């Protein structure tokens, strides 16, 4: 039954008999999804004339990384990244200092993960003795797109990271969020490498442009994927629950837990 599924995906909702807003302690916030699309587009389009991705890729990637950092910094500072915490009390009580610390942590975490990523790039074949700037800045960009969502939602909890990114266990919404961005970005970034050895002779085939381009493309796909998985599907379920509640109220039937098995099975058939 769909209602059961929702409750297993949402551990916080288990046992709650009321179908009100408390079932979703966090509300999906569409703002950052739209902002994410906008900022990643901004990072791709050169903000200033004379800044050429082909001629000065490092400079360009620095600018795009700065734009991405600004985007995350604003959201982190306002504490609205990923989900609007329904406990608005907590948000109000957060001090300025703790907000700055959060932004700082996000930035540092991204830079460290960019270092790890650039080591991985080199292992996958990036030049070792040259183009360090390109490799590291590409890693910073990819890191902002793939890892920073996980940093912000999963915090410094290795177990949560493993669970979110590497397991098929049922996940909470923040975990789905992190995994969606991480895998979409990483897979297209990986696939972008296939364009490097092609003999088309295009300027965009130079290291690291296909990788970063792939990552941006994957991030946009990830945006849609995450929007559907964390936003549209739960909303649909919420609607479904809402109508079911109304129906039940109208027929004055007892709540699912109190029903007899016969009734429940007939109910299921009807719903189907």
């Amino acid at each position: 039954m769909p209602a059961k599924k929702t409750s297993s995906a949402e551990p916080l909702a288990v046992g709650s008999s009321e179908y009100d807003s408390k079932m979703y302690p966090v509300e999906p916030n569409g703002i950052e999804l739209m902002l994410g699309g906008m900022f990643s587009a901004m990072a791709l389009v050169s903000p200033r004339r004379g800044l050429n991705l082909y001629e000065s890729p490092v400079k360009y990637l620095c600018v795009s990384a700065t734009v991405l950092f600004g985007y995350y910094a604003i959201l982190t500072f306002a504490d609205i990244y990923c989900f609007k915490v329904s406990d608005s009390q907590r948000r109000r009580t957060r001090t300025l200092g703790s907000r700055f610390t959060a932004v700082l942590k996000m930035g540092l975490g991204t830079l460290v993960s960019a270092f790890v990523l650039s080591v991985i790039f080199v292992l996958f074949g990036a030049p070792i003795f040259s183009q360090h700037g390109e490799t590291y800045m590409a890693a910073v960009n990819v890191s902002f797109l793939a890892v920073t969502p996980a940093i912000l939602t999963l915090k410094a909890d290795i177990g949560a990271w493993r669970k979110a990114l590497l397991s098929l266990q049922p996940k909470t919404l923040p975990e789905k969020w992190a995994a969606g961005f991480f895998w979409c970005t990483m897979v297209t970034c990986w696939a972008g490498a296939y364009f490097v050895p092609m003999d088309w002779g295009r300027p965009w085939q130079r290291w690291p442009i296909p990788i970063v381009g792939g990552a941006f493309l994957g991030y946009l796909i990830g945006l849609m994927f995450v929007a559907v998985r964390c936003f549209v599907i739960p909303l649909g379920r919420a609607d479904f629950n809402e109508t079911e509640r109304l129906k039940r109220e109208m027929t004055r039937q007892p709540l699912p837990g109190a029903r007899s098995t016969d009734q429940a099975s007939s109910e299921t058939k009807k719903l189907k």
Partner: protein
Amino acid sequence: MALLAAVLAVELVGLGFFVKGFFPYKRSIPGFASVQDQPESFAGGSPQEPPAPQYDRLVVMLVDALRNDFVFGNNSAMAYTQGLLRDGRAVGYTAKALAPTVTMPRIKALMTGTVPNFLDAVLNIAESDTSSSLKFQDNLLWQLKNRGKAINMFGDDTWLRLFPDVFSRTDGTSSFFVTDTVEVDANVTRNVRPELERDGWDVTIFHYLGLDHIGHLAGPDSPLMRPKQEEMDHVVRDILEIVSAQDVKRLAADSSARPTLFVLLGDHAMNEIGNHGGNSHLETSTVFVFVGEGIRGQPIADKGRNALSALLTNVVPQINLVPTLALLFGVPVPKNNLGLPLPELIAGYSDGERLRLLQIAAHQIYGVVLANDPDLATIDIAKETAGDAMPTCDSDHDPVSMVLRCEYIRALTAHKRFTKARPGSAAGAAAAAAAATAEGEYYSFMGHANAHLSRTFSGYDLNAMSVGIALFCVSTMLLVALYQASSSGIANFKTKRIIMSVPAIALLVTYVISLNSSSLIEEEHQFWYHWVQTMFFLRLLTSRHSGGVVRTFFQMCLFRIARAWNQTGQNWPGEIDIRYYLNSSYNRLMWFMVLVTFALFGVCASWIHRSAASAESLRRSKSGAPSIHVGRSRYRRRLAYGQRIFRGVLSTALANALVYQMERNGGWQVVGLSQPVWSVVRWFTPSELADVARFVYLLTFAAALLGTGCAWLRRRSGVSDHAVLVTAALEGLVGLLPLLLLLARPHNIPVFAIFVAMFVLFFPQLLPRTGFGRKGSVAVQTAGCGPAEVCSNEWRLSALRPSKALVLLCLVHASFFVLGNSNSLASLDLSNAYAGVSRYNEGLVGVLLFTANWAGPLWWAAAGFATLALSAADDTAAGPEDGRMQRLLGWIVAAHLWQAATILVLSVVVTLMRTHLFIWSVFSPRYLYQIAWFAGFYLAAVTAGGTGWLAALLATK
């Protein structure tokens, strides 16, 4: 098993059909051109009268692999030849060769003017093929001989095979001992003076091989290269001096005599590491230099080093030599020629004569057009040009052959106009203009015909190809069924779940897609390097404990180093790699690395039995079985003996391989050993170098026998079946090394150490106990994973974890490229296929060639068998061996499924792209390599070798 054999037989038959259809022997016009075939002249007179020859003697000096910059470049040592060109006494061109850039097809092209069949490249390697001779195909030499010229040939004996019964005096040299760079040329040069000074020759050919050998050995920047160029330059000067002195006398004595033409040319060139065979710019850019009475080039005032750089871009097709020489010597142009006469060389004729020559050449090319399009009508020259109006050709709508016919008629009409204008015209300018128009028309027609014909010149037998593809389909489907029926399977229909792991499916899909792209075929190594690291990375991510993470990270690092060893492919061929450093400034380091590698493998060899024994004792102490069987002590003593002998044999083989490498490549001097010390070392090994190699073969064979004997003894002395398998597998893995190292290029020897290290890192039980390996990983396992149920739950994404078999598959393919191979025929390493071979022997050299080039894949396949033995996972009730035999069969079926899918897709791709620009340069070599992978590697080495090995082990029971 029998079923698998049947399926593979079907696949082999399919391969036969497809190859027969795809690589056909060329359809060529039979017979030889004669004077009667020539068109009637507009100028009146005898219609088939041959034009007066410009020369009556010819000296061809062919320098193998002579690249254009060796003569024209600013680093050339050929000062005399450069001087000739600079003074305008010679004409130089960059001659563009077509792939395959290997000697035999190039000679064929240079003498017949045809675009060669791809199969020629293969036959060039399997060089005894007699059907490739030009006895029955029209060629320049036959025409010259038919004219009564005496032809002598000195140098590469390929000519003697190609042109039996053509030469009067010969002295052949074999091209297959690549290590010799001095004697091959001395054997040619000693003939130059005596043979040229002797009377009674008309055509003399010298074919020098030393320059090519230097390229193969040490590349175009070798220190040997400049002295060789100087040597060639001296030969040029000697020849010209002798010949011009003779010409002065001859022309004075006989007024009908004509002067001598000298041609310096290369058959192909070489790429930046000195190999050839492919289609890259460097490999195909060779040289024509013509010197002779009446040849006037543009004198160049510039005396600087770059004076001749314009000639580097003065590109003409190599086959243009054929009509040019035929016309200059007044013989009919060979029937299948596609080349165009070189305008600068026939510029010495009057307008009328020159147009007549062009008419003859155009007529011959039109004959080829006719042969390729039976529907096309022959041209009745008088009728078609009667109207005297030049037709306009509709190149947009008419079929190409019709357009060509029309263009030919245009040219003929223009020619006729010129002949008509001549008698009456007082003004020579009008005649000259008419001549220029006609000449332009002839060249335009011949150029278009050449372009059209070289595109469509190879016929395919589509029926045979379709039969082949159908058989591939059948065998692929049967293999899918077989794999499904085998232990692992593809999908479980009961639970409706796919069993194949996600990485395996992704690998298969991406690989099949990559076969469609010519660049991903040229750069296939990039594909495998990417996938090896992806597999390792996924293993790292999904590894259960931090010991595994660390080991996998080290494997990734090692592989990153290995992939930087040899730069291959077409996109970045000149990239500096480790091989470059090791062969230049770090040569000494390289030899020390070689020494260390051999020492390391020596340690490995002595360590196998100890580690196996300790594993065995550990096992026994765990299971509580009594450690000494009294009745078996006899076998134990013998086993100890046998193992000692095995280790001794293996170490001796390694030592001999090392001595072979150091002697052959001069390593002992680089390392700094003095002559007496080295002669002491050599005193212990066979004195002949070839015997050292043979000794290694013998010892490897002895080691195989001893290993089987030891396995037999081991079983009798109460060692567990598992330990027998493990020891035998490790013995095989190390026992293969002397052979592979013997055949490897010296700079690749350390790569094997990397391979061994990568393999050992898969198995913590193989690592020394004290290290981080075994103990550490066990300890971290408990610390990293927490409560048991969290562990089992958390790692459900094991669908992403590639199995060792899958990583090994990637490594098998990647190691092929790591050692410097690629999908171009140029990268085939011929130099090591002759170790210990004193006489050319097709089968033996073929096996050695395969072993030398597939050394990496062979070793990793052996590593796969060792993995099978080492993995303790399925000790089924039927006993470890039966379980493993099952699993081995499963692997083999999977590998063949993979190969069948590849062959099927590749065949379809090749069939669809048969008119593609890159079909001969990219797709066909890839197909040949695919055949070698399937028939040589997967079928012969893995399937036959692997099951044979396991069967031998089982037979010791």
